[in-house]
């Protein structure tokens, strides 16, 4: 979808498939207690494409509604809402970022971007290589600080700009409001931080099997909080270096190292756990769009690579392996920054915006109470 739907235009593709199911869900409403999707659906009599996009991102994929659905296959209504909404999310991932400046298939785009990032890093590393004056175990022995700044900063800025662009288009298409309200923002932040919509109304997620389980929410929490801790570690390092005037390496008992280790360990455990759950998640029938499932695995593999190489640079920083491991880690960082806006990483942005909109719509009474 590239334009906001004007009026109740006929829907096609993933939107038509989702709409067919959502209309039945809105006439049933048994799943109202599981998550925010159903109360949000009940506030709507007609569904435009933007509404369906919004509902799809509000869905946190707990799959309780599938397990509870008497209309799930083999029933002739063939309701499989987790799969239908995940297909819409895949479409959102595809359609909201601007076209990349190079003409290529998505897979080629990923490969080219990744390789280019690695090449950039290699060139910068070779031309502006590390200084023998930097302390042992300092990254600046491998790559000079300005080179590192350019190598990581450029793709980071690019990634952030593209995601901001995608977010703005998404916000326009889903007709959102409420970004300016502290109440709404706080509520959305708290729901995102606790993954409230993966609680299944207290029942947990029907994932990876049909039995209720908290594994998904806990592991996802590890990944998200681990990622946040890694970002905080970088910020702490920047503060130590540029404000406190204390160059790396930092001792084990310092904010950058402790945050980095905790965050990295959380990401490793979370990503590995989620990948393991994916291997045993239900397949009969699949409750996720296969294309989005591939992107989910790719995101987890990417984050896992980042976390593992990051931890290794710390563990090996006093050994001869430090330089090559750091190079690999930096290459991974650069590549991930560059391609992030074209991966499932964006789901964090879209889902947060969906939570903001939902809290704005639901009013102070909170989700579950349609007006």
């Amino acid at each position, binding site marked *: 979808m590239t334009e906001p739907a004007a009026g109740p235009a006929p829907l096609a593709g993933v939107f038509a498939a989702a709409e067919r199911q959502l209309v*039945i869900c809105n*006439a*049933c409403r*048994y*799943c*109202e207690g599981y998550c925010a999707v159903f109360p949000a659906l009940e506030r709507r009599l007609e569904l435009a494409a933007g509404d369906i996009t919004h509902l799809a991102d509000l869905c946190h994929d707990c799959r309780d509604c599938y397990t*509870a*659905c*008497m209309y799930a296959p083999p029933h002739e209504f063939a309701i499989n809402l987790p799969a239908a909404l995940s297909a819409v999310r895949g479409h959102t991932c595809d359609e909201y970022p601007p076209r990349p400046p190079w003409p290529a298939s998505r897979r080629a785009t990923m490969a080219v971007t990744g390789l280019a990032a690695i090449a950039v890093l290699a060139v910068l590393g070779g031309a502006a290589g590390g200084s023998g004056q930097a302390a042992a175990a300092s990254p600046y022995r491998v790559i000079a600080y300005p080179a590192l700044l350019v190598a990581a900063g450029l793709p980071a800025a690019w990634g952030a700009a593209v995601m901001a662009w995608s977010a703005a288009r998404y916000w326009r298409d889903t007709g959102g409001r409420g970004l300016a309200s502290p109440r709404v923002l706080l509520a959305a932040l708290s729901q995102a931080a606790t993954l409230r919509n993966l609680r299944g109304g207290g*029942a947990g997620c029907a994932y990876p099997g049909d039995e209720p389980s908290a594994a998904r929410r806990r592991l996802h929490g590890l990944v998200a909080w681990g990622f946040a801790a890694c970002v905080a570690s970088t910020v702490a390092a920047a503060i130590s270096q540029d404000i406190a005037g204390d160059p790396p390496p930092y001792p084990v008992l310092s904010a950058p190292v402790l945050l980095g280790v905790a965050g990295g360990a959380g990401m490793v455990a979370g990503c590995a756990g989620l990948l393991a759950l994916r291997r045993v998640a239900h397949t009969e029938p699949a409750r996720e769009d296969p294309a989005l499932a591939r992107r989910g695995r790719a995101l987890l593999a990417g984050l896992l690579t980042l976390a593992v190489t990051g931890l290794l640079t710390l563990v090996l920083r006093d050994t001869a392996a430090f330089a090559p491991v750091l190079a690999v880690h930096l290459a991974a960082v650069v590549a991930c920054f560059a391609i992030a806006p074209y991966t499932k990483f964006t789901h964090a942005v879209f889902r947060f915006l969906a939570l903001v909109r939902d809290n704005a719509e639901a009013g102070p009474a909170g989700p579950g109470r349609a007006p």
Partner: protein
Amino acid sequence: MTAGEPWDVVVIGGGNAGLVAAITAREAGASRVLLLERAPAALRGGNTRHTRNVRCVHDTGDQYTPGAYPYDELWRDLCAVGDGPSDERLAAHTVRLSESVPAWMSAHGIRWQPPLTGTLHLGRTNRFFLGGGKALVNAYHRTAEAAGVAVRYDATAQNMDFAGDRCAAVLTADGDRIPARAVVCASGGFEANIGWLRRYWGDAADNFLIRGPATNDGRMLAALYCRGAARAGQERGFHAVAIDARSPRFDGGIATRLDSIPFSVVVNTSGERFYDEGEDLWPKRYAIWGRLIAGQDGQIAYSVWDSKVNRLFLPPMYGPVAAPDVAGVARALGLDPHALATTVARYNKAVVPGAFDPSRLDGCRTDGLSPAKSNWAQPIDTPPFYGIAMRPGITFTFMGVRVTEEARVVTVDGGTLGNVFAAGEIMSGNILSSGYLGGFGLTIGTVWGRIAGAAAAREATR
């Protein structure tokens, strides 16, 4: 187990009553309990899949049922539907025992949620379980499995092998002979057996839509009658609601139900009104409309409303027809445009102005119109106009087997079928006559599932 060694308790039917009976039998000391589920695992639970709440006595409110619902009030509500309770003693027993049902359900894995949006007026009396009936069935299966109940899917019980006045084994459609010390029949009504319905309803039965699975054909009920079980309940007793005429013949469930009636006028194929659409609060009246429509020509009726009230009820899954005028709605529904326009104009003229309030009996009524509309009467005058064709949607039949207070199946000669017990819809005719009270089917199933399960365990282990 070795071939031929009998199960302590065999439960026929994997809906609410059967699951409750199986779990209870296990807890009451039956060591080997087998539940026969006719459906494959993906469709297990029968009509229970389509339920969503349970109506029980509670003397105080809580977060899920705000406000008390004392014994006397539930009893009055039960007496006010149809011809009242069939057997006052068993009905009173059911109402009395209903008070312990929610706590029992909670203790066996059921979670609750606040009353669903759009279910006007049900919040105080009825308790909604999280996720609806299939979630309830899933939770009970988990509990049953943990308790050691064996479950056999795709197992259609269709007869019993008797030794004297005691059932020795359950016989399945696949030719299995399953020996049992005690048997609980929780196999539901016969609403999906159109041929059986035709005996009492004639050709009209061909126009009935069945809200639950096509497998509810009553073959165990027929087997029990053959064995001399006494009948309980009326031949034409059933719970039927107005559902979209476009619904599937079987298993359309809740999504096909129409709640537009109190905010609309309802006409027959001649375009004429035939009953007071605003007689009482919808949860007390929705269950009469299936029967009302079953009594109309062609077993079809049409609900017509305007844009003022379009958001006041659950949106129909197939969507209404819409037109800029009433005649357009009539044409889209295949009705005589002149007849419908005349009916609506006459109704509009009869509406007495008042303060419309969908949340209570608002007294907005018609004057000098027959039949009257007693509440929520507003002129139908704001385009676009909407309409939907409705048919009777049969939820379950009441006619079943007579039981004792211990859920033993009573025979026509006044004895009992030894070790055979019944719970749920198959014995609901002991309690319900011709009317229905929303959420009470689950109450009957849970109360009598517990009674039958415990009694069967006693029978098997004594």
